[in-house]
Protein backbone atom coordinates (compact mmCIF):
# COMPACT_ATOMS: atom_id res chain seq x y z
CA UNK A 1 0.00 0.00 0.00
CA UNK A 2 2.70 2.44 0.94
CA UNK A 3 4.46 2.51 -2.36
CA UNK A 4 6.97 5.28 -2.06
CA UNK A 5 8.66 7.67 0.22
CA UNK A 6 9.39 10.88 -1.56
CA UNK A 7 11.62 13.78 -1.19
CA UNK A 8 14.30 12.83 1.28
CA UNK A 9 17.54 14.62 0.49
CA UNK A 10 20.72 12.84 1.36
CA UNK A 11 24.14 14.14 0.65
CA UNK A 12 25.27 10.67 -0.22
CA UNK A 13 22.95 10.67 -3.20
CA UNK A 14 24.31 13.83 -4.74
CA UNK A 15 25.18 17.40 -4.00
CA UNK A 16 23.88 19.40 -6.94
CA UNK A 17 25.98 22.48 -7.31
CA UNK A 18 28.42 21.53 -4.61
CA UNK A 19 32.00 21.56 -5.77
CA UNK A 20 33.43 18.73 -3.73
CA UNK A 21 36.93 19.48 -2.50
CA UNK A 22 39.27 17.57 -0.29
CA UNK A 23 38.59 19.79 2.69
CA UNK A 24 34.84 19.29 2.71
CA UNK A 25 32.95 16.68 4.63
CA UNK A 26 30.04 15.38 2.58
CA UNK A 27 29.39 12.18 4.50
CA UNK A 28 29.12 11.58 8.21
CA UNK A 29 31.57 8.69 7.91
CA UNK A 30 34.27 11.24 7.09
CA UNK A 31 33.87 12.74 10.53
CA UNK A 32 36.32 11.84 13.26
CA UNK A 33 35.25 9.15 15.67
CA UNK A 34 34.35 10.30 19.18
CA UNK A 35 32.06 13.05 17.96
CA UNK A 36 30.70 15.43 20.56
CA UNK A 37 27.08 14.85 21.53
CA UNK A 38 24.42 17.09 19.97
CA UNK A 39 24.14 19.00 23.24
CA UNK A 40 27.91 19.54 23.35
CA UNK A 41 27.70 20.78 19.77
CA UNK A 42 24.99 23.24 20.80
CA UNK A 43 27.35 24.60 23.45
CA UNK A 44 30.25 24.82 21.01
CA UNK A 45 28.12 26.57 18.40
CA UNK A 46 27.18 29.14 21.03
CA UNK A 47 30.69 29.60 22.45
CA UNK A 48 31.22 33.34 22.80
CA UNK A 49 34.84 32.94 21.64
CA UNK A 50 33.75 31.35 18.40
CA UNK A 51 34.59 33.43 15.33
CA UNK A 52 31.62 35.56 14.40
CA UNK A 53 30.70 37.12 11.08
CA UNK A 54 33.13 40.05 11.14
CA UNK A 55 35.95 37.81 12.41
CA UNK A 56 35.40 35.61 9.39
CA UNK A 57 34.81 38.39 6.89
CA UNK A 58 38.03 40.14 7.86
CA UNK A 59 40.05 36.96 7.34
CA UNK A 60 38.36 35.43 4.31
CA UNK A 61 37.83 38.55 2.21
CA UNK A 62 39.91 41.57 1.29
CA UNK A 63 38.82 45.21 1.34
CA UNK A 64 35.54 44.68 3.14
CA UNK A 65 33.47 47.85 3.01
CA UNK A 66 30.42 47.64 5.20
CA UNK A 67 27.19 49.10 3.80
CA UNK A 68 24.64 50.28 6.27
CA UNK A 69 20.91 50.63 6.56
CA UNK A 70 17.61 49.41 5.23
CA UNK A 71 16.67 52.79 3.62
CA UNK A 72 13.49 52.92 5.68
CA UNK A 73 13.96 52.73 9.43
CA UNK A 74 17.31 51.83 10.93
CA UNK A 75 20.70 50.23 10.53
CA UNK A 76 20.46 46.98 12.48
CA UNK A 77 23.81 46.07 14.10
CA UNK A 78 22.74 42.41 14.37
CA UNK A 79 23.19 42.05 10.62
CA UNK A 80 26.32 43.23 8.86
CA UNK A 81 26.84 43.32 5.15
CA UNK A 82 28.80 44.94 2.42
CA UNK A 83 31.09 44.53 -0.51
CA UNK A 84 34.36 42.67 -0.24
CA UNK A 85 36.74 40.86 -2.51
CA UNK A 86 37.45 37.17 -2.55
CA UNK A 87 40.86 36.76 -4.16
CA UNK A 88 40.33 40.00 -6.04
CA UNK A 89 36.79 39.35 -7.15
CA UNK A 90 33.94 41.38 -5.65
CA UNK A 91 31.13 39.72 -3.72
CA UNK A 92 28.31 40.87 -1.49
CA UNK A 93 28.62 39.34 1.95
CA UNK A 94 25.86 39.45 4.59
CA UNK A 95 25.87 37.85 8.01
CA UNK A 96 24.31 37.85 11.42
CA UNK A 97 26.70 39.38 13.92
CA UNK A 98 27.05 38.24 17.50
CA UNK A 99 29.32 39.95 20.01
CA UNK A 100 32.37 38.42 21.60
CA UNK A 101 31.71 40.16 24.93
CA UNK A 102 28.62 41.13 26.86
CA UNK A 103 29.02 44.77 25.84
CA UNK A 104 29.32 43.83 22.20
CA UNK A 105 26.41 41.47 22.52
CA UNK A 106 24.22 44.24 23.83
CA UNK A 107 25.12 46.36 20.81
CA UNK A 108 24.57 43.40 18.49
CA UNK A 109 21.41 42.27 20.30
CA UNK A 110 23.09 38.85 20.72
CA UNK A 111 22.89 38.36 16.98
CA UNK A 112 19.09 38.52 16.96
CA UNK A 113 18.03 40.72 14.05
CA UNK A 114 15.08 43.06 13.94
CA UNK A 115 12.97 43.20 10.77
CA UNK A 116 15.06 46.12 9.52
CA UNK A 117 18.10 43.86 9.63
CA UNK A 118 16.49 41.48 7.16
CA UNK A 119 15.39 44.45 5.06
CA UNK A 120 18.97 45.67 4.94
CA UNK A 121 20.01 42.21 3.82
CA UNK A 122 17.37 42.31 1.08
CA UNK A 123 18.64 45.66 -0.10
CA UNK A 124 22.12 44.19 -0.42
CA UNK A 125 20.85 41.10 -2.25
CA UNK A 126 19.17 43.40 -4.78
CA UNK A 127 22.38 45.37 -5.13
CA UNK A 128 24.22 42.12 -5.80
CA UNK A 129 21.69 41.14 -8.43
CA UNK A 130 21.84 44.52 -10.10
CA UNK A 131 25.61 44.43 -10.46
CA UNK A 132 25.98 40.69 -11.01
CA UNK A 133 27.88 39.99 -7.82
CA UNK A 134 27.70 36.62 -6.07
CA UNK A 135 26.32 36.56 -2.54
CA UNK A 136 27.84 34.88 0.50
CA UNK A 137 25.76 34.74 3.66
CA UNK A 138 27.01 33.85 7.13
CA UNK A 139 24.34 32.42 9.41
CA UNK A 140 24.79 32.75 13.15
CA UNK A 141 21.76 33.64 15.24
CA UNK A 142 19.75 32.26 18.13
CA UNK A 143 16.78 33.44 16.07
CA UNK A 144 15.07 36.61 14.96
CA UNK A 145 14.45 38.95 17.89
CA UNK A 146 11.09 38.09 19.49
CA UNK A 147 10.37 41.46 21.17
CA UNK A 148 7.23 43.54 20.70
CA UNK A 149 8.87 46.20 18.50
CA UNK A 150 10.01 43.45 16.19
CA UNK A 151 6.43 42.21 15.99
CA UNK A 152 5.20 45.75 15.31
CA UNK A 153 7.65 46.19 12.47
CA UNK A 154 6.81 42.84 10.91
CA UNK A 155 9.38 40.23 11.85
CA UNK A 156 7.41 37.52 10.06
CA UNK A 157 6.92 39.61 6.92
CA UNK A 158 10.62 40.46 6.79
CA UNK A 159 11.68 36.82 7.09
CA UNK A 160 9.13 35.66 4.53
CA UNK A 161 10.14 38.36 2.04
CA UNK A 162 13.81 37.66 2.51
CA UNK A 163 13.30 33.96 1.83
CA UNK A 164 11.22 34.81 -1.22
CA UNK A 165 13.83 37.16 -2.61
CA UNK A 166 16.63 34.62 -2.13
CA UNK A 167 14.71 31.88 -3.90
CA UNK A 168 14.65 33.99 -7.08
CA UNK A 169 17.80 36.08 -6.80
CA UNK A 170 19.56 35.85 -10.15
CA UNK A 171 23.13 35.49 -8.83
CA UNK A 172 24.91 32.63 -7.07
CA UNK A 173 24.35 32.37 -3.32
CA UNK A 174 26.55 30.37 -0.98
CA UNK A 175 25.38 30.02 2.62
CA UNK A 176 27.79 29.22 5.44
CA UNK A 177 26.32 28.36 8.84
CA UNK A 178 28.97 29.55 11.26
CA UNK A 179 27.41 28.79 14.61
CA UNK A 180 23.76 28.78 15.55
CA UNK A 181 21.25 28.36 12.75
CA UNK A 182 18.25 29.39 14.80
CA UNK A 183 14.90 28.87 13.14
CA UNK A 184 13.25 31.21 10.63
CA UNK A 185 15.62 33.98 11.65
CA UNK A 186 18.48 31.86 10.28
CA UNK A 187 16.64 30.61 7.22
CA UNK A 188 16.03 34.23 6.20
CA UNK A 189 19.73 34.27 5.28
CA UNK A 190 19.86 30.59 4.45
CA UNK A 191 18.49 30.08 0.96
CA UNK A 192 21.32 29.41 -1.44
CA UNK A 193 22.65 27.24 -4.20
CA UNK A 194 25.11 25.63 -1.84
CA UNK A 195 24.67 25.46 1.92
CA UNK A 196 27.79 24.77 3.95
CA UNK A 197 28.10 24.52 7.70
CA UNK A 198 31.03 24.54 10.05
CA UNK A 199 31.55 21.15 11.63
CA UNK A 200 30.14 22.25 15.00
CA UNK A 201 27.37 24.46 13.73
CA UNK A 202 23.71 23.66 14.42
CA UNK A 203 20.56 24.32 12.43
CA UNK A 204 17.21 23.84 14.05
CA UNK A 205 13.54 24.70 13.84
CA UNK A 206 13.50 25.94 17.42
CA UNK A 207 16.07 26.08 20.21
CA UNK A 208 16.45 22.83 22.17
CA UNK A 209 15.32 24.73 25.26
CA UNK A 210 12.22 25.99 23.48
CA UNK A 211 11.42 22.56 22.12
CA UNK A 212 11.84 20.96 25.54
CA UNK A 213 9.69 23.59 27.20
CA UNK A 214 6.86 22.88 24.80
CA UNK A 215 7.07 19.14 24.27
CA UNK A 216 8.47 17.99 27.62
CA UNK A 217 7.16 21.00 29.51
CA UNK A 218 10.61 21.43 31.02
CA UNK A 219 13.58 23.35 29.69
CA UNK A 220 15.86 20.93 31.52
CA UNK A 221 15.03 18.34 28.89
CA UNK A 222 16.92 20.46 26.36
CA UNK A 223 19.66 17.87 26.05
CA UNK A 224 17.16 15.20 25.06
CA UNK A 225 15.50 17.64 22.67
CA UNK A 226 18.87 18.40 21.07
CA UNK A 227 19.28 14.72 20.28
CA UNK A 228 15.72 14.25 19.04
CA UNK A 229 15.81 17.34 16.80
CA UNK A 230 18.83 16.19 14.79
CA UNK A 231 20.32 19.65 14.62
CA UNK A 232 24.06 18.87 14.55
CA UNK A 233 26.53 18.39 11.71
CA UNK A 234 26.08 14.69 10.87
CA UNK A 235 22.28 15.11 11.00
CA UNK A 236 22.46 18.09 8.68
CA UNK A 237 24.38 16.02 6.15
CA UNK A 238 21.98 13.13 6.57
CA UNK A 239 18.90 15.29 5.91
CA UNK A 240 20.61 17.34 3.24
CA UNK A 241 20.05 20.58 5.15
CA UNK A 242 23.77 21.17 4.62
CA UNK A 243 25.48 20.04 1.45
CA UNK A 244 28.81 19.71 3.22
CA UNK A 245 30.57 20.52 6.46
CA UNK A 246 33.71 22.59 6.75
CA UNK A 247 36.25 21.02 9.07
CA UNK A 248 37.08 23.02 12.19
CA UNK A 249 40.44 23.07 13.95
CA UNK A 250 40.86 20.20 16.37
CA UNK A 251 39.77 22.10 19.46
CA UNK A 252 36.87 23.76 17.71
CA UNK A 253 36.59 27.01 15.73
CA UNK A 254 36.90 29.12 18.87
CA UNK A 255 40.47 27.88 19.41
CA UNK A 256 41.75 29.18 16.10
CA UNK A 257 39.98 31.89 14.13
CA UNK A 258 42.69 31.99 11.49
CA UNK A 259 42.53 28.31 10.68
CA UNK A 260 38.74 28.39 10.67
CA UNK A 261 38.69 31.33 8.27
CA UNK A 262 41.26 29.64 6.05
CA UNK A 263 39.08 26.54 5.87
CA UNK A 264 36.04 28.65 4.97
CA UNK A 265 38.00 30.49 2.33
CA UNK A 266 39.23 27.25 0.80
CA UNK A 267 35.67 26.01 0.72
CA UNK A 268 34.16 29.18 -0.76
CA UNK A 269 36.46 29.72 -3.70
CA UNK A 270 35.66 26.53 -5.65
CA UNK A 271 31.95 26.92 -4.91
CA UNK A 272 31.82 30.44 -6.33
CA UNK A 273 34.07 29.48 -9.21
CA UNK A 274 31.69 26.75 -10.16
CA UNK A 275 28.45 28.64 -9.54
CA UNK A 276 29.58 31.68 -11.48
CA UNK A 277 29.65 29.56 -14.62
CA UNK A 278 26.09 28.24 -14.29
CA UNK A 279 23.50 29.99 -16.48
CA UNK A 280 21.05 31.91 -14.33
CA UNK A 281 18.00 29.92 -15.43
CA UNK A 282 19.70 26.69 -14.39
CA UNK A 283 20.83 28.24 -11.15
CA UNK A 284 17.30 29.25 -10.21
CA UNK A 285 15.79 26.00 -11.33
CA UNK A 286 18.26 23.95 -9.33
CA UNK A 287 17.93 26.22 -6.33
CA UNK A 288 14.18 25.66 -6.52
CA UNK A 289 14.61 21.91 -6.65
CA UNK A 290 17.08 21.97 -3.78
CA UNK A 291 14.49 23.38 -1.39
CA UNK A 292 11.53 21.78 -3.15
CA UNK A 293 12.75 18.32 -2.31
CA UNK A 294 12.85 18.68 1.48
CA UNK A 295 10.21 16.60 3.16
CA UNK A 296 9.61 13.01 4.15
CA UNK A 297 6.16 11.62 3.75
CA UNK A 298 4.34 8.62 2.44
CA UNK A 299 2.00 8.68 -0.49
CA UNK A 300 -0.12 5.53 -0.78
CA UNK A 301 -0.65 4.72 -4.44
CA UNK A 302 0.32 8.09 -5.80
CA UNK A 303 -0.67 7.05 -9.30
CA UNK A 304 -3.69 9.34 -9.46
CA UNK A 305 -1.85 12.22 -7.85
CA UNK A 306 0.40 14.40 -10.00
CA UNK A 307 4.00 13.26 -9.85
CA UNK A 308 6.03 15.37 -7.51
CA UNK A 309 8.95 17.24 -8.97
CA UNK A 310 11.99 15.07 -9.41
CA UNK A 311 14.49 15.33 -6.62
CA UNK A 312 17.11 17.82 -7.55
CA UNK A 313 20.04 15.44 -7.63
CA UNK A 314 18.40 13.57 -10.49
CA UNK A 315 17.91 16.75 -12.43
CA UNK A 316 21.56 17.47 -12.02
CA UNK A 317 22.28 14.79 -14.56
CA UNK A 318 20.75 17.10 -17.13
CA UNK A 319 22.90 19.98 -15.99
CA UNK A 320 24.96 21.10 -19.00
CA UNK A 321 27.83 21.75 -16.65
CA UNK A 322 28.28 18.07 -16.09
CA UNK A 323 28.84 17.47 -19.75
CA UNK A 324 31.08 20.41 -20.46
CA UNK A 325 33.36 19.29 -17.67
CA UNK A 326 33.69 22.84 -16.40
Amino acid at each position, binding site marked *: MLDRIVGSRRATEGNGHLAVEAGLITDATQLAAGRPTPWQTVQTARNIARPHALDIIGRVFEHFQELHGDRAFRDDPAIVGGIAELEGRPVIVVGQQKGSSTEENIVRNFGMPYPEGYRKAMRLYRLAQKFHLPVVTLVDTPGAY*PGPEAEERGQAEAIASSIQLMTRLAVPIVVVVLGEGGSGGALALGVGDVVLALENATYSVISPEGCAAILWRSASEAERAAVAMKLAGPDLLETGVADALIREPAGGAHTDHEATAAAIKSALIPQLDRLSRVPVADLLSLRYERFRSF*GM*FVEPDGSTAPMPAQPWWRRILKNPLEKGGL
Partner: protein
Amino acid sequence: MRLRNPFGRKTKEFPSHLWTQCPSCGEMLFNKQLERNHRVCQKCGHHFKLGALERIELLADPKSFSETDAAIVSSDPLGFVDSKPYPERIAAAQAKSGHKDAVLTGDAQISGVPVVLAVMDFEFMGGSMGSVVGEKLTRAAERAYADRKPLVIVSASGGARMQEGTIALMQLAKTVAAIARLDEAAIPFISVLTDPTTGGVLASFASLGDIVLAEPGALIGFSGARVTSETIGEKLPKGFQRSEFLLEHGFVDQVVPRTQLKERIAFFLNSFRIAGQDLRWSL
Protein backbone atom coordinates in the same frame (compact mmCIF):
# COMPACT_ATOMS: atom_id res chain seq x y z
CA MET B 1 -10.41 33.78 31.94
CA ARG B 2 -13.40 34.42 34.16
CA LEU B 3 -16.55 33.95 32.20
CA ARG B 4 -19.68 35.85 32.85
CA ASN B 5 -22.99 34.04 32.70
CA PRO B 6 -25.48 36.64 31.54
CA PHE B 7 -28.56 34.78 32.64
CA GLY B 8 -27.29 33.92 36.08
CA ARG B 9 -28.14 30.28 35.41
CA LYS B 10 -25.86 27.45 36.29
CA THR B 11 -23.81 26.16 33.39
CA LYS B 12 -25.11 22.64 33.90
CA GLU B 13 -28.31 23.92 32.31
CA PHE B 14 -26.21 24.31 29.12
CA PRO B 15 -24.78 20.90 28.27
CA SER B 16 -21.70 21.39 26.17
CA HIS B 17 -22.82 19.20 23.30
CA LEU B 18 -25.70 21.62 22.81
CA TRP B 19 -24.34 24.97 23.97
CA THR B 20 -21.08 26.92 23.73
CA GLN B 21 -20.22 29.96 25.79
CA CYS B 22 -18.72 32.90 23.88
CA PRO B 23 -15.29 33.63 25.38
CA SER B 24 -15.64 37.25 24.36
CA CYS B 25 -19.11 38.32 25.56
CA GLY B 26 -20.06 35.33 27.71
CA GLU B 27 -23.27 34.65 25.82
CA MET B 28 -24.44 31.04 25.79
CA LEU B 29 -24.78 30.08 22.14
CA PHE B 30 -26.86 27.18 20.85
CA ASN B 31 -24.42 25.03 18.89
CA LYS B 32 -26.66 24.47 15.90
CA GLN B 33 -27.28 28.14 15.51
CA LEU B 34 -23.57 28.87 15.97
CA GLU B 35 -22.75 26.48 13.14
CA ARG B 36 -25.39 28.06 10.93
CA ASN B 37 -23.76 31.40 11.65
CA HIS B 38 -20.38 29.97 10.53
CA ARG B 39 -19.21 29.96 14.17
CA VAL B 40 -19.50 33.69 14.66
CA CYS B 41 -21.13 34.85 17.91
CA GLN B 42 -24.45 36.45 17.03
CA LYS B 43 -24.18 38.79 19.97
CA CYS B 44 -20.66 40.23 19.80
CA GLY B 45 -19.24 38.99 16.49
CA HIS B 46 -16.52 36.88 18.10
CA HIS B 47 -15.02 34.55 15.50
CA PHE B 48 -14.61 30.99 16.78
CA LYS B 49 -12.09 28.75 15.05
CA LEU B 50 -13.49 27.09 11.96
CA GLY B 51 -12.62 23.59 10.74
CA ALA B 52 -11.25 23.04 7.26
CA LEU B 53 -14.41 21.40 5.91
CA GLU B 54 -16.64 24.16 7.24
CA ARG B 55 -14.23 26.72 5.79
CA ILE B 56 -14.38 25.11 2.37
CA GLU B 57 -18.16 25.09 2.59
CA LEU B 58 -18.03 28.78 3.45
CA LEU B 59 -15.77 29.78 0.57
CA ALA B 60 -16.16 27.33 -2.30
CA ASP B 61 -19.21 27.27 -4.54
CA PRO B 62 -21.43 24.28 -3.72
CA LYS B 63 -19.93 20.99 -4.89
CA SER B 64 -17.08 22.79 -6.64
CA PHE B 65 -14.33 21.57 -4.31
CA SER B 66 -12.38 18.62 -5.54
CA GLU B 67 -9.66 17.50 -3.15
CA THR B 68 -6.16 16.76 -4.42
CA ASP B 69 -3.20 15.00 -2.85
CA ALA B 70 -5.56 13.63 -0.22
CA ALA B 71 -3.57 10.49 0.42
CA ILE B 72 -0.27 11.97 1.53
CA VAL B 73 0.51 11.14 5.13
CA SER B 74 3.38 11.86 7.42
CA SER B 75 6.33 9.57 7.91
CA ASP B 76 8.64 9.93 10.87
CA PRO B 77 11.87 11.26 9.43
CA LEU B 78 13.68 11.69 12.72
CA GLY B 79 12.20 8.84 14.74
CA PHE B 80 11.04 11.58 17.06
CA VAL B 81 9.88 10.67 20.55
CA ASP B 82 8.92 13.11 23.25
CA SER B 83 6.32 12.03 25.79
CA LYS B 84 5.03 9.79 23.04
CA PRO B 85 6.30 8.82 19.59
CA TYR B 86 5.46 11.15 16.71
CA PRO B 87 3.50 8.48 14.76
CA GLU B 88 1.21 8.05 17.75
CA ARG B 89 0.59 11.79 17.85
CA ILE B 90 -0.25 11.73 14.17
CA ALA B 91 -2.65 8.86 14.62
CA ALA B 92 -4.36 10.59 17.51
CA ALA B 93 -4.67 13.82 15.53
CA GLN B 94 -6.10 11.93 12.56
CA ALA B 95 -8.67 10.27 14.77
CA LYS B 96 -9.60 13.54 16.46
CA SER B 97 -9.79 15.73 13.35
CA GLY B 98 -10.87 13.27 10.68
CA HIS B 99 -8.09 14.67 8.44
CA LYS B 100 -4.82 13.05 7.40
CA ASP B 101 -2.85 16.19 8.24
CA ALA B 102 -3.25 19.91 8.93
CA VAL B 103 -4.21 21.12 5.46
CA LEU B 104 -6.76 20.25 2.78
CA THR B 105 -6.02 21.28 -0.78
CA GLY B 106 -7.99 21.09 -3.98
CA ASP B 107 -9.50 22.75 -6.98
CA ALA B 108 -12.57 24.86 -6.40
CA GLN B 109 -14.60 27.75 -7.66
CA ILE B 110 -15.19 30.90 -5.67
CA SER B 111 -18.20 32.80 -6.99
CA GLY B 112 -17.56 31.19 -10.33
CA VAL B 113 -13.81 31.89 -10.48
CA PRO B 114 -11.72 28.71 -10.73
CA VAL B 115 -9.02 28.66 -8.06
CA VAL B 116 -6.69 26.37 -6.21
CA LEU B 117 -7.84 26.43 -2.60
CA ALA B 118 -5.89 25.32 0.47
CA VAL B 119 -7.34 25.43 3.96
CA MET B 120 -5.48 24.65 7.16
CA ASP B 121 -7.09 23.08 10.19
CA PHE B 122 -5.90 24.08 13.64
CA GLU B 123 -7.46 20.94 15.12
CA PHE B 124 -4.69 18.83 13.60
CA MET B 125 -1.67 19.28 15.88
CA GLY B 126 -2.23 23.01 16.13
CA GLY B 127 -2.14 23.40 12.37
CA SER B 128 1.60 22.82 12.49
CA MET B 129 3.52 22.65 9.22
CA GLY B 130 5.63 19.58 8.59
CA SER B 131 6.46 17.70 5.42
CA VAL B 132 2.87 16.89 4.52
CA VAL B 133 1.58 20.43 4.89
CA GLY B 134 4.64 21.74 3.06
CA GLU B 135 4.29 19.27 0.21
CA LYS B 136 0.54 19.76 -0.22
CA LEU B 137 0.84 23.55 -0.22
CA THR B 138 3.76 23.41 -2.63
CA ARG B 139 1.83 21.16 -4.98
CA ALA B 140 -1.15 23.48 -4.70
CA ALA B 141 1.03 26.45 -5.70
CA GLU B 142 2.62 24.44 -8.49
CA ARG B 143 -0.82 23.45 -9.78
CA ALA B 144 -1.91 27.09 -9.69
CA TYR B 145 1.23 27.91 -11.65
CA ALA B 146 0.74 25.18 -14.21
CA ASP B 147 -2.99 25.82 -14.68
CA ARG B 148 -2.68 29.63 -14.39
CA LYS B 149 -5.32 29.76 -11.68
CA PRO B 150 -5.29 32.01 -8.64
CA LEU B 151 -4.27 30.49 -5.32
CA VAL B 152 -6.18 31.08 -2.10
CA ILE B 153 -4.70 29.83 1.17
CA VAL B 154 -6.53 30.08 4.49
CA SER B 155 -4.01 29.73 7.30
CA ALA B 156 -4.51 28.56 10.86
CA SER B 157 -1.30 27.40 12.44
CA GLY B 158 0.92 27.51 15.46
CA GLY B 159 4.00 27.32 13.23
CA ALA B 160 6.46 24.67 12.10
CA ARG B 161 6.08 21.12 13.41
CA MET B 162 8.89 20.55 15.89
CA GLN B 163 8.66 16.77 15.58
CA GLU B 164 10.12 17.02 12.09
CA GLY B 165 13.06 19.13 13.21
CA THR B 166 15.01 21.09 10.63
CA ILE B 167 13.04 19.46 7.82
CA ALA B 168 9.99 21.27 9.14
CA LEU B 169 11.95 24.52 9.02
CA MET B 170 12.84 23.84 5.39
CA GLN B 171 9.12 23.76 4.55
CA LEU B 172 9.22 27.56 4.93
CA ALA B 173 11.69 27.82 2.07
CA LYS B 174 9.92 25.14 0.05
CA THR B 175 6.49 26.77 0.16
CA VAL B 176 7.89 30.27 -0.34
CA ALA B 177 9.89 29.12 -3.37
CA ALA B 178 6.66 27.94 -4.97
CA ILE B 179 4.88 31.18 -4.08
CA ALA B 180 7.80 33.16 -5.53
CA ARG B 181 7.26 31.54 -8.91
CA LEU B 182 3.57 32.49 -8.80
CA ASP B 183 4.66 36.01 -8.01
CA GLU B 184 6.98 36.17 -11.00
CA ALA B 185 4.25 34.83 -13.23
CA ALA B 186 1.75 37.36 -11.85
CA ILE B 187 -0.69 34.68 -10.80
CA PRO B 188 -2.79 36.07 -7.95
CA PHE B 189 -2.29 34.71 -4.46
CA ILE B 190 -4.73 35.68 -1.73
CA SER B 191 -3.70 34.86 1.82
CA VAL B 192 -6.35 34.69 4.54
CA LEU B 193 -5.14 34.72 8.13
CA THR B 194 -7.40 33.17 10.74
CA ASP B 195 -7.08 32.54 14.45
CA PRO B 196 -4.24 31.75 15.05
CA THR B 197 -1.60 32.26 12.38
CA THR B 198 1.81 32.38 13.99
CA GLY B 199 5.44 31.34 13.74
CA GLY B 200 6.76 29.63 10.65
CA VAL B 201 3.53 29.84 8.67
CA LEU B 202 3.31 33.61 9.13
CA ALA B 203 7.06 33.85 8.45
CA SER B 204 6.61 32.16 5.10
CA PHE B 205 3.81 31.96 2.53
CA ALA B 206 1.06 33.48 4.70
CA SER B 207 2.70 36.92 4.72
CA LEU B 208 3.25 36.97 0.97
CA GLY B 209 -0.24 37.35 -0.47
CA ASP B 210 -0.90 39.92 -3.14
CA ILE B 211 -3.80 40.59 -0.85
CA VAL B 212 -3.59 39.65 2.82
CA LEU B 213 -6.93 39.42 4.63
CA ALA B 214 -7.50 38.61 8.29
CA GLU B 215 -10.55 37.60 10.24
CA PRO B 216 -11.46 39.90 13.14
CA GLY B 217 -9.62 39.32 16.39
CA ALA B 218 -7.35 36.57 15.10
CA LEU B 219 -4.02 36.03 16.85
CA ILE B 220 -1.33 36.75 14.26
CA GLY B 221 2.34 37.03 15.07
CA PHE B 222 5.84 35.71 14.68
CA SER B 223 6.72 34.90 18.26
CA GLY B 224 4.35 33.45 20.79
CA ALA B 225 3.05 36.16 23.07
CA ARG B 226 4.58 34.26 26.00
CA VAL B 227 8.05 34.41 24.48
CA THR B 228 7.64 38.07 23.63
CA SER B 229 6.37 38.89 27.08
CA GLU B 230 9.27 37.04 28.70
CA THR B 231 11.72 38.82 26.41
CA ILE B 232 10.69 42.23 27.64
CA GLY B 233 9.70 41.10 31.12
CA GLU B 234 6.42 42.93 31.08
CA LYS B 235 2.85 42.56 29.99
CA LEU B 236 1.99 43.18 26.39
CA PRO B 237 -0.48 45.85 25.34
CA LYS B 238 -4.09 44.83 24.82
CA GLY B 239 -4.76 43.80 21.25
CA PHE B 240 -1.10 42.92 20.65
CA GLN B 241 -0.74 40.52 17.71
CA ARG B 242 -4.43 40.67 16.89
CA SER B 243 -5.70 41.27 13.35
CA GLU B 244 -6.49 44.90 14.06
CA PHE B 245 -2.97 45.44 15.43
CA LEU B 246 -1.49 44.07 12.22
CA LEU B 247 -3.81 46.24 10.15
CA GLU B 248 -2.64 49.33 12.00
CA HIS B 249 0.99 48.32 11.54
CA GLY B 250 0.58 47.83 7.84
CA PHE B 251 0.72 44.06 7.35
CA VAL B 252 -2.88 43.27 6.53
CA ASP B 253 -4.91 44.82 3.73
CA GLN B 254 -8.27 44.36 5.37
CA VAL B 255 -9.88 42.77 8.40
CA VAL B 256 -12.91 41.02 6.94
CA PRO B 257 -15.77 39.47 8.92
CA ARG B 258 -16.24 35.83 8.05
CA THR B 259 -19.66 36.39 6.55
CA GLN B 260 -18.21 38.80 3.97
CA LEU B 261 -15.09 36.81 3.23
CA LYS B 262 -16.27 34.95 0.15
CA GLU B 263 -17.58 37.98 -1.72
CA ARG B 264 -14.49 39.98 -0.82
CA ILE B 265 -12.14 37.31 -2.12
CA ALA B 266 -14.26 37.06 -5.27
CA PHE B 267 -13.94 40.82 -5.80
CA PHE B 268 -10.16 40.69 -5.64
CA LEU B 269 -10.00 37.62 -7.87
CA ASN B 270 -12.08 39.46 -10.42
CA SER B 271 -9.88 42.54 -10.20
CA PHE B 272 -6.73 40.53 -10.72
CA ARG B 273 -7.60 38.70 -13.87
CA ILE B 274 -4.57 36.83 -15.00
CA ALA B 275 -2.74 38.54 -17.84
CA GLY B 276 -4.16 37.41 -21.16
CA GLN B 277 -7.48 36.50 -19.60
CA ASP B 278 -8.70 40.05 -19.16
CA LEU B 279 -10.20 41.95 -22.04
CA ARG B 280 -11.48 44.85 -19.99
CA TRP B 281 -8.38 46.98 -20.48
CA SER B 282 -6.28 46.74 -23.59
CA LEU B 283 -3.12 46.74 -21.47
